[in-house]
């Protein structure tokens, strides 16, 4: 140790330190990166015919905005590397193909059947590695922890989606939709791919097990319903205030008119 401290003023000490620092940072980054890459790479293998069929569907329905080989245009982003999960979410919830350009794509009736969606996903997944469609094990809500998921949800999701997942407003016409009635798979895919204005919660940010907890939480509160009666949209005090000023005072006024209906 003493020998080392004596050499600390050596002309090459700074260079050595820099190299050491870069080595440590680099290896840490590679280690961290390989965790998410390992997950991203295991795209579900699809047959060649699926990819070919998917490409045909893509050229016919998506290429106008995303470009002939999904490289992106001024009207739509590149889809290389977005992964099968992104396609499965966007097309599977009817957001894509988009009805019109706007602040964000709106959910609408789904345009393709399951086979077509999986073909489209296979084609886009073949363009570059990206998040895969999640397997059954991470969607199984019987294995999840609702309380743990609730904590993760409140810290990461509630600021846009509302603590009861009722949805909320974002800037300039964008919004976070309600999560009631969204399937387990689509919730997972949304977290993994960050559709529209949503941030990406990758596997090193919220692990697949944690994602399963979040899904379990959402499905639990959905199944529980509202303990105290009609939920008034789960929108909090505004809905309650509106209710008391309309229905509450309305009933009261009806009774006051009845009580004083005999003219004096």
């Amino acid at each position, binding site marked *: 140790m003493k020998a080392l401290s004596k050499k600390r003023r050596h002309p090459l000490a700074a260079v050595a330190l820099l190299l050491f620092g870069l080595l440590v940072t680099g290896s840490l980054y590679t280690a961290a990166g390989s965790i998410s890459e390992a997950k991203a790479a295991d795209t579900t293998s699809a047959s060649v015919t699926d990819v070919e069929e998917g490409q045909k569907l893509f050229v016919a329905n998506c290429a106008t905005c995303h470009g002939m080989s999904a490289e992106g245009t001024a009207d739509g982003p590149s889809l290389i590397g977005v992964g099968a999960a992104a396609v499965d979410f966007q097309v599977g919830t009817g957001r894509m193909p988009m009805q019109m350009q706007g*602040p964000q794509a709106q959910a609408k009736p789904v345009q393709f059947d399951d086979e077509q969606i999986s073909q489209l996903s296979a084609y886009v997944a073949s363009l570059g590695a990206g998040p895969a469609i999640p397997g059954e094990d991470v969607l199984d809500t019987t294995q999840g922890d*609702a*309380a*743990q*998921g*609730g*904590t993760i949800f*409140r*810290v990461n999701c*509630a*600021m*846009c*989606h*509302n*603590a*009861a997942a*009722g*949805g*909320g*407003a974002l*800037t*300039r*016409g964008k*919004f*976070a939709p309600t999560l009631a009635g969204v399937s387990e798979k689509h919730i997972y895919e949304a977290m993994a791919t960050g559709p529209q204005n949503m941030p990406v919660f990758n596997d090193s940010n919220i692990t697949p097990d944690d994602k399963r907890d979040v899904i379990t*939480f959402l499905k*639990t*509160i959905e199944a*529980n319903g*509202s*303990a*105290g*009666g*009609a*939920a008034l949209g*789960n*929108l*909090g*005090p*505004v*809905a*309650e*205030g*509106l*209710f*008391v*000023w309309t*229905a*509450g*005072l309305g*009933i*009261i*006024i009806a*009774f*006051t*008119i009845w*009580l*004083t209906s*005999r003219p*004096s």
Partner: protein
Amino acid sequence: MATTNEYTPSTTTGRLANFVDSRVGASGMVKEFGRKIFPDHWSFMFGEVALYTFVLLLLSGTFLTFFFDPSMTHITYNGSYVPLKGIGMSAAMASTMDISFDVRGGLFMRQVHHWSALLFVASLSVHMLRVFFTGAFRRPRELNWVVGGVLLIMGLAAGFTGYSLPDDLLSGNGLRIIDGVMKALPIVGTYLSMFFFGGEFPGVHVIPRLYSLHIMIVPAVIILLLVIHLFMVVTHKHTQYPGPGRTNDNVVGFPVGPVYAAKAGGFFFIVFGIVAFISGLFQINPIWNYGPYDPSPVSAGTQPDWYIGFVDGALRLMPGYLGNFSFEWIIPFPWGDNTLVLSVLLPALVPAGVLFMVMFAWPWIERWVTKDNREHHLLDRPRNAPFRTAMGAAGVVFYCVMWAAASSDLIATHFHVALNDVTYWLRILFFLGPIFAFWITRRICLSLQRKDREIVLHGREAGIIQMSPEGGFSEKHEEVDVYKRFLLTSYNDNKYIPAQPDAAGHVSGSEKRRAALSKFFFEDRVAPVTPSELEAAHAAHGHHEVEGEKQDSIEK
């Protein structure tokens, strides 16, 4: 009071009653108070609704204190609500969860308490609006108007302290805003916040402190003010709407005993029933959705209860920057820089301050401008006081713009408009809305008064179309009856009073300002129909003099 001479009752009940009466003099009180007359009108009953919801609040609140633990001790929740099981939270939150899920009838009582709180402040507000728009605050009732205003503020205080007690995420966010407003005060802000929270926010003291205020001080003040308020109502007697046989010196209506005792007693149970019905069927403040308070998350759709909404809305409307102009000022002091955060202080304190100041001062402002110091026991129809109605409408719009701003995010999502556009429009309305409301309301009132004049002078449209021998069509006008005409012609008519010199012949500055205000208020006015006008109109219509014309005179 009690005159106990030789009266000896024969029955047991009689003996008991006589025993009590000869000692407390109850019969005198019943005789005095039981024959008190109250006029009958649906709009007079909102104060009663407030009183009854307050009784409900006391009853349900007492039930809740049996189970609520006002402590911020950190514990792990282990009750029956699965999505929060094993989560750390304060004892306050955990006991509220237990009230909701593990105490029999607890959730119902919580909902009764919260719904009656919302209804309590709502009925207080509507009651005050009724008093304002009918001019019931005029002499001799100015002080009772002030007491009522303080009651409203105490209602807000009771609501806010109660809203914070469960220590859930939503109420914690509300407290954080209070903390922010305190810290925005220069120099004293941080000290004030540390004092209030007993350390850095959120600390471990604020819930027990709010609990003491919520269950002792605030309700005690409300009860005290309530007693003063009702005492003054009895002293002043109730106001009444104008009508035949109703004068400034009488009250036309039913006596307390037996009519109003029965009506009011029944009405209490009706209000109780309505609140129980709502509480049984509609969920309110589901704290299990929000989860325990933690300073890091803020949920979308975080709003206060409706009565604090206007302050929240003002905060949402306030820009932090206007172009390059920052509302955050750094003030250099000898001991260092202090920050004056006007973007928080202005919206949090000024609109509410202005609203309450004008509200409290209005009886005196009106008395000063109109020079009307007479006693008024007859109410105004709102149209017959266009200046006051217009001012009230301006105040209501001012309040409602801020109120709407508190739900700007929900307006954006539910009407599919951009949140930013909602904010821009509400900012414009914040300044222009009250002006337009004043102007439009005054025009509507004046038009209604003109319509009343028209009806008195030319009769009401009968809906009968007559064809003349020449083939022309005309609608028949029917003369209104004498009672209706009395209502339409006998109102308190305020005129523009130019500046008057004082004894020394000098016109003071304040008198000039009064005259300017008087001109602004009363320049445009519709005078009530005079007997001579009526006679002229009748002569023109070929009528003979109508019976009872003398009593139509407004010159008393």
